[in-house]
């Protein structure tokens, strides 16, 4: 980011404040939803959906992932694939019970 001008940074700063407001709002929403005591399935879906949006905001704007170099994207995609494997495969051992 060494070539970025002061003007551009000022624009960035406005974005950061907007993102901050959005994060706060989403935090309130996710807590509010938890008081509705939805069924477990829905609660997980909603909570993870909101958390993913918040996470994407942080990664996208604070960590500048929205305009990053290809190499970083490649590394993260690779990591994401293995992350998914790690999340899904161990638990898929319970599939036998579902199939039955």
């Amino acid at each position: 980011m060494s070539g970025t001008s002061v003007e551009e940074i000022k624009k960035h700063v406005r974005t950061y404040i907007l993102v901050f407001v959005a994060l706060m709002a989403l935090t309130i929403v996710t807590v509010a939803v938890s008081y509705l005591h939805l069924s477990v399935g829905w609660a997980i879906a909603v909570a993870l959906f909101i958390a993913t949006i918040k996470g994407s905001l942080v990664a996208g704007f604070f960590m500048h992932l929205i305009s990053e170099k290809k190499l970083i994207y490649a590394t993260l995609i690779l990591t994401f694939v293995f992350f998914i494997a790690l999340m899904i495969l161990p638990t898929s051992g319970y599939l036998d019970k579902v199939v039955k």
Partner: protein
Amino acid sequence: MQIPYTVSLRPDTGLFNAKLGVWLFLASEVMLFGALFSSYVFLRVAAPEWPHGYDLLNVPLALLNTIVLISSSVTMVMSWASLMMKDFVKYKRYMGLTILCGLIFLVVKAFEYGEKFAVGITPADSTFMAIYFTLTGLHGLHVVGGIIVNTYFWGPGSKMWKREPERFTNRVEVAGLYWHFVDLVWIFLFPVLYLL
């Protein structure tokens, strides 16, 4: 010969060394926390019953901590932006706030733990409490690490600004990437442990 691309960008990758380095480090951190989240799912799916986090844990305190940590992320990115605008005084202020937020987070966390221990709740109580203490404890250690790094760049490390301003800005950016990641982990920890 000097090691190249510590400050300048390598033309074909468009990156300086430390930025690639920290992203790789964060990739491994994703796998570290990923394994713990995966364990959480694995244990929860197998459990005959699983408690609601909000019945056992203090949601208002955690909400406060969420707000504190998100705020610290904003001040962190503002401290970097200040350096980009060559405003060292503002940098000091924002970085100071970031460190302060980190410390507040830890104090609140300590209260939360204390509250549990006071009524005799320990990690040994149940798998839920085990995963709660392990995940938040490990996250807390990451906060401690971040505070140490940030304090260094706020205090003695900031002397570099006079000699090599560009390199120092890079360092703060890289420290920021780590700090945002710690925030990111909490954003997932909070609903998973407290709200489900």
